[in-house]
């Protein structure tokens, strides 16, 4: 792989990581902590929504986020021809 596309690969990786980190921050620190009071006005079954994000939802989203990242990186590896054997 030529030098330029290695840099491009890294740039795309950083972009993806940044997106994932924003989601990571918003669901846990945002919805679960900072916005917990306004969100608690909304109900999700017997859960207040802010409470649900803090004790359930954020964890489900963390799991989904890692698989999303892993999947996208797999595609990126292929696109740049750097996937492992």
């Amino acid at each position, binding site marked *: 792989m030529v030098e330029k596309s290695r840099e491009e690969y890294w740039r795309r990786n950083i972009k993806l990581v940044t997106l994932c980190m924003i989601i990571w921050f918003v669901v846990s620190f945002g919805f679960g902590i*900072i916005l917990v009071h306004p969100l608690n006005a909304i109900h999700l*079954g*017997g859960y*207040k929504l802010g409470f649900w994000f803090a004790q359930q939802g954020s964890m*489900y989203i*963390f799991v989904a986020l890692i698989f999303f990242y892993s999947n996208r990186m797999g595609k990126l590896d292929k696109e740049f021809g750097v996937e492992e054997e």
Partner: protein
Amino acid sequence: MSLQVLTVLVVGATFVLYIYIAIRSKAKDTSDFYVASKGVHPVLNGMATGADWMSAASFISMAGLIAFLGYDGAVYLMGWTGGYCLLAMLLAPYLRKFGKFTVSEFIGERYYSNFARMVAVACLITASVTYVIGQMKGIGVVFSRSLGVSFEVGIVIGMIIVFIYAVFGGMKGVTNTQIAQYCVLIFAYTVPAIFIALQLTGMPIPQLGLGSTMSDGSGVYLLDKLDGILTELGFAAYTAQKMSTINVLFLTMSLMIGTAGLPHVIMRFFTVPSVKDARASAGWALVFIAILYTTAPAVGAMARMNLMQTIQHGPVGSIDGNIEYAKVPAWFKSWEKTGLLKFEDKNGDGRIQYYDEKGLKTAESFGWKGNEMIKVDRDIMVLANPEIAGLPNWVVALVTAGGIAAALSTAAGLLLAIATAISHDVLKGWLMPDIDDQQELKFSRIAIGGAILVAGYLGLNPPGFAAQVVALAFGLAASSIFPAIMMGIFSKRVNDKGAIAGMIAGLGSTLIYIFVFKGWFFFKSTAMLPDNADNWLFGLNPQSFGTVGAIINFIVAYVVSFATEPPPQRIQDLIEDIRVPIASK
């Protein structure tokens, strides 16, 4: 069959399983011993990581902690899971590409400095030793409560078991037993939770049961009912926030970056075959962890509900609203014997009053003379759960085996991290660079044996600060190891001087902040300020300070690096290399 005999049989059976696995996975060389020859399937590594990560505290204490903290318990739930996102995206794949054996080895090579490597070794050993004391204590506690042997005998049995599989099998043996231990602990955790959710809400999945209506026909949601019961007795509502928002934020962040920086967790990702597997494996690890961590809030809330309803079964203030002491269920009496529950009949009416004296102003008009549940140990919530729910004895025995599995698997992972740092970083990397692979393997076996003896000794003679040290472990990992690794990957400009200055500044500030409030080296008498919100800097409690330490580390490292020369070309090439899964052509 008596409960005790059944427990011995179940726990004994799990031990036979662990030892059988250990005998089948003897390590042949250092690659086997340190990283299981990098041949662990990502899903299995995820399972092993789950067991490695979930300690006696996660298994026994966390649900009880949540039961009494309510919403605030979320700091532990999010803090101890969110770190895996950081691990998966910021550390694990690149460290796997680097392809060596230890965390400190990466820091040493990336910052081309043996001193940086030894600073990392010191952080790693301190964090791991403090953590392992807690596991040893956990093993002793579970043994002494459930098997009728003494605390000391429990620790010694635990040491022997870990010794057998860690010394012979190294990472290979530890990985294989951790997979088995994960299965034992998750089964033991979820079975009682399912039954309790069914009893209270008619919904077998605890995660959904927590958001369901009560099965008593009232149509009231469980959490609303719990909020109501608690506030009526003067306690804070379950779903209300009690800690200040800034502490919730900083503590959650400290636990997240601490998790991502704990060496025994990071090193698990050295064992998978490829970079791709390292990414996926972090996801699997979090799946297996989240099964327990999303169940825990349900267990906590439901256990609290059961406890409150057992004691206050009628309207607050009515004469027969409280349970008569003579009529308490058997589990109440049996936990009273252990001293973890304590009741004192202050008003002499033969009934139990359990309420918050500060919150319930009308208590005196009911003839109540103070809260009579003078001790409710949080650990009871998980350990007594099967009895409270009236589950059969084999479930009680299973919970004991699960608690031991959780403690043993974490202890083994930590001991391996310590031994690896000693044999590979200190001996091979520094003091005795000329030893060959087989000699190094021998030293690593001696090191792990020695680490087990030290951990056992500290477990038997716990220093007074044992309860405080977990905060220290996370603070150390958050303020020193995590930033150093992350900058090592994401910045080509941070050099040896910057990294060392950053680690020392981050670590130093965190230690000082903890010591000022908790006492120097945890000797209480040397504390310089009372440990309360009035004295805390920006209202931050010492546990939450790891985040600030990490920020200081980042700032100092960048400032010093930019004031000095950039790293040499070969280091720049190394960074280029670890950023991409395959080598450049």
